[in-house]
């Protein structure tokens, strides 16, 4: 096991190097002087300012020298600062990450909560009406883009029923759980819908495969009740690929909440990112991108390791 972890970590480091390198090159690929790209168009472009930026970014050094010094800074948590807001990128991320993280986790949690029972039901009643109905529902859910579902949610829950606020975000740390939930439920639901669909499809198909396994027949021949078989025998072997997808989705959500965050005015990473993109705040774009990519890689590694911890077959070998 230690060996597995070690090789996995080694791979992780290699991947991270490549990821950071690519992100770093982003600035390089832009046409023109990087200083031009970094400064807002109406900036007071004094000689000192330009010189200062060049010095801060070591723009006069060769590319690789700059990459490694940037990488060093990155490892130390220094991603530079925005020349538009003046805030450091690290602060920005530290500020936004909890929000996006919560959204991602909540939406995955909500999706799982509904998807797993649905998927099990579909597999258990395969071909019968409960399956047909849920499969159809899941298909539709899968096909509704989340921004469309978001519009609908706001219209229904905020404007018509006035149950939940339409926009905004109450930080868990400041306003407490209830207030936080009020603002987080809608965007999380909007994000959850398509995942719910993916998850329940996955659980259903894996479960169907599992239910055809001989060991399920064995369990039935032992006279165990169906519910017991479904949950104690079939669920765990059926949820291994679900775990991978949950991991991948989780990583992807860190960068995938852009639209929903903009729509619900949720001040997460995505919202900041789209603002940065709109104002061409390159260092912020770069910083957030490299962070998300890094997080994605790390999360997937962790999921891989967890996966092998969960499946005794893999754990052994």
């Amino acid at each position, binding site marked *: 096991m230690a060996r597995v972890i070690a090789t996995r970590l080694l791979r992780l480091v290699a991947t991270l190097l490549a990821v950071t390198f690519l992100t770093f090159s982003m600035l390089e690929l832009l046409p023109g002087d990087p200083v031009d790209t970094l400064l*807002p168009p109406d900036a007071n472009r004094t000689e000192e300012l330009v010189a200062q930026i060049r010095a801060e970014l070591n723009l006069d050094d060769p590319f690789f020298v700059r990459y490694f010094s940037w990488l060093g800074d990155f490892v130390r948590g220094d991603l530079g600062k925005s020349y538009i807001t003046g805030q450091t990128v690290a602060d920005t991320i530290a*500020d936004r990450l909890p929000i996006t993280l919560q959204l991602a986790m909540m939406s995955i949690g909500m999706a799982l909560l509904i998807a797993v029972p649905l998927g099990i039901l579909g597999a258990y009643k395969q071909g019968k009406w409960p399956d047909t109905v849920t499969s159809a529902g899941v298909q539709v859910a899968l096909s509704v883009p989340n921004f469309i579902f978001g519009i609908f949610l706001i219209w229904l829950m905020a404007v018509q029923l006035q149950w939940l606020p339409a926009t905004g975000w109450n930080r868990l740390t400041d306003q407490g759980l209830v207030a936080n939930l009020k603002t987080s439920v809608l965007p999380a639901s909007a994000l959850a819908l398509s995942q719910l669909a993916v998850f329940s499809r996955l659980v259903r198909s894996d479960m169907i495969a599992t239910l055809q396994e001989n060991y399920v027949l064995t369990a039935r021949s032992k006279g165990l009740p169906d519910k017991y078989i479904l949950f104690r025998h079939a669920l765990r072997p059926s949820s291994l690929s679900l775990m991978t997808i949950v991991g991948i989705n989780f990583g992807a959500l860190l960068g995938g909440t852009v639209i929903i965050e903009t729509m619900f005015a949720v001040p997460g990473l995505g919202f900041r990112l789209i603002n940065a993109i709109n104002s061409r705040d390159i260092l912020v774009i770069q910083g957030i991108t490299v962070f998300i990519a890094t997080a994605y890689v790390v999360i997937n590694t962790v999921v891989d390791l967890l996966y092998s911890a969960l499946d005794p077959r893999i754990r052994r070998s």
Partner: protein
Amino acid sequence: GGDDDGDTASDDTSVEATTGDATDDTGDGGDDGGDDGGDVTTPATVEDTDTSIVREEGERTYGGDVIFGLEAEAVGMRPWEDACGEPCLNIQLSMMEQLMRERADGSYGPWLATDITSNDDFTVWTMTLRDGVTFHNGEPFNAQTIVDMYPVQQSGTSGAAAINAAKLASLEATGDMEITYTLSTPNSAFPASLAGVLGRVFEPKAAAADPDGFTMNPIGTGPFVMDKRDIDNETVVVRNENYWMSDPDGNQLPYLDSITFRPIPDEGTRLDSLLSGTVNMMHSLRQGTIRDARGADGIQLYEFQGNNTGGGMYNTAVPPFDDVRVRRGLNLMNNQEAVIDALGGTGISLPATQWFSPDSPYWTQEAADAWPTFDFEAGVESIQAYIDDPARSDGKAPGELIDVELSCPPDPTLIAAMQVIEQVWTGSGLVNVTLTQFDQATHISNAVNDAHRAHCWRWSSNQDPSLAIDPVVAPPEESVSNFPNFFNEESFQLAQQALQTDDVEERTELYKEIMLNFAEDSIFWYSGYTATMVAVDPSIQGINGWLLPDGTLGNGFPNAFVTFTEVWIEQ
């Protein structure tokens, strides 16, 4: 050199003028560009909207919180550095005050100043400051403050531009509470500059000590104090218990306990947020939102049309726009009514003929009459004349179509306007139109770098006309902001003259002449005046009629920014 650079973005208001599209463009630019024309189709609707400024009656009560949905986050809070559009002004002015403010009648009255006078040729201005004002951090406000602010302003992007536009050469403290400004050239509109970035008072020691930190923790003298700033989420300001101003009945201002500013970029959800009670106040610079808000129940609307004109400009340095026949022809073909009609801005904003809306004291009937309004046949004729001219400037053979590249930022509403214009121009059978879109930043830098042809633009300045007009009529080689790259000696002289008098009628006359020249030279095309809106829960009062310290009526809520000193919530 530095002067030219300064011109590109003169003072804060003119920064707004040039980048106005930019800052709000994510949301609004388009509508401004296209919306007008209300008067032609249903003028009644426009008149229905009561835009007169009156002081509200009613029992003022203390307490209450306002949650204000803004169309964008105001990232920078440094008046000397950051461009500040409408969302930003709302936040910034709740905490920082200006030396002067605009009155309802368009003149400027003192706010943190008590008085300002000039010498005869408007080159030296002496201002006395209000006594007994302190900053949120307890620092006193006095002449030294202004002196200390000056180097900070000079070092900042916005500040330097504002100094430049105001023609300010130097200043000195001529007393404890007295400042003397010396200008490089006459500027009768200097008080207007002091109602902008130049006059926006921030605590200079704190600013100098930690310039970047100021964005998170701005310190001014205003009625509200920064409480909590969570960028992109909410900025909370709370009542300044030591605020210096009282209402006419002697009650200490402000009435509100706090204001929470929330950026909600999505127009639809912003209005939904108001309708669902998530926020109790919002603003919008989009005509479509105004229309939707008009249709909604249970909210109170404040609409405003100021010196905002949407449209575009031609780069006359590039053929065929160097020929007035082309520009005039294109303008004559511009079916303003159709542009607005197609946009659904009908009944909200009026078609534009000049840089001032009929609300403005500078609006004149002559200028309106002189503008080449829609006359398709005349337009076709004008362009035909150019096309048939063997000496046509674009070097093509007589009879060949002219090429027009029309460029706007990629806002859906602007695109809609563009499409209508494209349709009419193409419809003449004489023009070959290409549409391009660039994001806001590129759009502006294209104009700055003269990489533009026919270019969407918005002139948004609720301020003295000189601030917006001067850079445009200045010689192109001296003024980067002369985006049309056109020089009319007469207009230039007229603008100079306008700076040498403070007589409103005289100035109106001068600016009218400039507008007539604009009509003659056709270096711009107009669509409509841009309406802006503040929509609130009906219990929120005091947005419309607030008073300057001298008891005169302020100018309401120009460009959807709200002065919160006297806002209260009706119980």
